[in-house]
């Protein structure tokens, strides 16, 4: 399934890809706010390896859309300095794993500067990180690194799953006075949905999950690249008699406890689905906090369907690693549909 999901049909819309929506968000941000600067490796003439910044250097000049030297800590560190001076840098990390050299800058400065200075020095930075697998990428090109980011207080962590959200959330992230890790699900870049690029939707506030599909049997809690997979699983589950609700978290930090818990209280059962490795991944946090808050509504433990606890596999084996429809349905089947005392 390569189509993004959940957008209601609007008049005069036409099919657009997530890549186009992201590009449009960058263009609109650059046009509206002169303090916005796009920077990274190959974001200029090339338009980025995923072409998200295509044409922007030409349109806004190399001072606004800048090919940097090849050094991620330097890129992020320089962006910190630019943000200190009132600019609003949007940094592109070329791939998930190539954000790691910038980790110290991220943890020790980006996440801490505002707190360190009692709010005097905000860093309105957006760090775009293409993440996740499923595109046949060789080693280091398919990591899901969100566990590192969500464990770092001071960062917002946002990830779209639809074309519309790609636009709205990126605009909101750039407009935010907090540093935002903006995780772009690589394999949805070319997913299409009908969208009206001439009248982009208003900017979505960060921190609100959305119910992508209503259902009564159980809730799938998911985000980013796993949203379409969960939608597909929910369709397939109907044949088995399960009516699944799908919640797209959209933002891991801040976390929308309200929407999530409302859904789980309604259904009484939940499965968290993500590509990131299970152990120490976001699913643990989500399952734990849902259980803390909804214990007496739960008919079964919150289960997790995640990537295995292994380095991301080579292209020819990645399908065995990625959480797919079958694995999700297997988990749903284990949600103790009849009384199975003593299983725990």
């Amino acid at each position, binding site marked *: 399934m390569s189509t993004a999901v959940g957008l209601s049909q609007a008049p005069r819309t036409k099919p657009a890809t997530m890549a186009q929506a992201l590009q449009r968000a960058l263009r609109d941000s650059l046009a509206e706010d002169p303090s916005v600067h796009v920077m990274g490796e190959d974001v200029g003439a090339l338009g980025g390896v995923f072409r998200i910044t295509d044409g922007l250097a030409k349109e806004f000049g190399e001072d606004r859309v800048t090919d940097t030297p090849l050094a991620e800590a330097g890129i992020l560190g*320089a962006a*910190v300095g630019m*943000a200190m001076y009132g600019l609003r840098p949007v940094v592109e990390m070329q791939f998930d794993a190539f954000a790691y050299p910038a980790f110290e800058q991220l943890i020790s*400065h980006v996440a801490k500067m505002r707190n360190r200075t009692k709010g005097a020095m905000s860093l309105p930075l957006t760090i775009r990180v293409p993440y996740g697998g499923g595109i046949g990428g060789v080693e280091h090109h398919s990591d899901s690194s969100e566990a590192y980011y969500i464990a770092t207080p001071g960062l917002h962590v946002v990830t779209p799953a639809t074309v519309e959200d790609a636009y709205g959330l990126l605009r909101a992230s750039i407009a935010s006075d*907090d540093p935002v890790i903006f995780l772009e699900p690589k394999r949805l870049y070319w997913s299409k949905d009908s969208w009206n690029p001439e009248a982009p939707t208003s900017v979505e506030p960060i*921190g609100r999950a959305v119910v992508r599909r209503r259902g009564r049997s159980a809730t799938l809690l998911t985000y980013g690249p796993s949203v379409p997979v969960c939608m597909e699983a929910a369709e397939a589950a109907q044949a088995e008699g399960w009516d699944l609700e799908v919640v797209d978290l959209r933002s891991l930090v801040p976390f929308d406890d309200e929407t999530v818990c409302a859904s789980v209280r309604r259904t009484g059962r939940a499965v968290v689905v993500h590509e990131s490795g299970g152990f120490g991944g976001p699913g643990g946090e989500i399952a734990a906090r849902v259980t803390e808050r909804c214990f007496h509504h739960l008919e079964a433990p919150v289960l997790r369907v995640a990537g295995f606890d292994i380095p991301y596999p080579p292209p020819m084996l990645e399908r065995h690693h990625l959480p797919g429809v079958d694995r999700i349905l297997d988990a749903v089947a284990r949600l103790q549909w009849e009384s199975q005392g003593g299983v725990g």
Partner: protein
Amino acid sequence: MSTRTEHGTPVMEQRGVHQPTPPPAWKPRTDPAPLLPDPEPYRVLGTSAADKADSALLLKLYGELVRGRRYNAQATALTKQGRLAVYPSTTGQEAAEVAAALVLQEQDWLFPSYRDTLAAVARGLDPVQALGLLRGDWHTGYDPYEHRIAPLSTPLATQLPHAVGLAHAARLKGDDVVALAMVGDGGTSEGDFHEALNFAAVWKAPVVFLVQNNGFAISVPLAKQTAAPSLAHKAVGYGMPGRLVDGNDAAAVHEVLSEAVRNARAGHGPTLVEAVTYRMDAHTNADDATRYRDDAEVETWRAHDPIALMERELTGRGLLDDERVKAVRDSAEEFAAALRQGMNADPVLDPMDLFTHVYAQQTTQLREQAEQLRAELEAEQER
């Protein structure tokens, strides 16, 4: 053979060097020779160059040196009294510290490392605020925008790319702003040093990098840190001028940094300055320097003390008499007394501040946690 570039930096000529950018690599290069570090540390005090030096400047530097020395002594004393968690002294390094502050204009920015509270104070920051980090009441004791002093940076060399980014941003905005970033000899080994200097050179950012080579990174001597002929030589690999200066000669540091700041301001890009100096005290009050160096070495350096060098020069010029010395010392004592008093007052702390500044857009999670702490604090009070 020594020559001059368009903007007046004296450089060593290196013959026959070649263009960085192919193609084609086999065509010989014709543009000016790349900049090389000074052949030997640049000096003013005690040389003929001193004749040109401005008396008012020398007296100003002298006052700052004496005050700086007193500041170091007072801060060290405060650690013993439990008023500071820890203090990394710059005794012996006052010349570089105060010169770094004095060469900047008001709109410029200073990027100090964790050791450089003295530079911040010499730039006009309230010493109590400068010492906030080390007192332990908050991470940064001041508003960076007030004096344009970035937060003291503890992770070594990480502040250098910030300085580059800020200077670059100012230049893009057309503002007349230079950033001066400080780092230690040990810090030059970090990847961030490399990346920052490279970005600065490529972007021609108006930034000056001041390396205080004080001989040690905690216990590790320079010889275990680098095999380079000097740290200033590192400039060569970035295509920027490198200058080597006697870091205990305040007039020399001031002159070399002023020139670098002038060049940056004029759009000629960054400079790397190595100030060779020595850390007379241990790494911090918690350190035991006898484990890794002997007193004889320290004594050698005492003979090259920045204050003594300056006093000799001023006395030679007839600018220093007992009265002036007394005035300078009295003023330093006053400063120290005020600092003592400021640090003796217990800071007023609000534990709820732990949650207030993490985000501009607060999360519900932190709101809940703040409520938890508030309830705990209220329960504590009721007891």
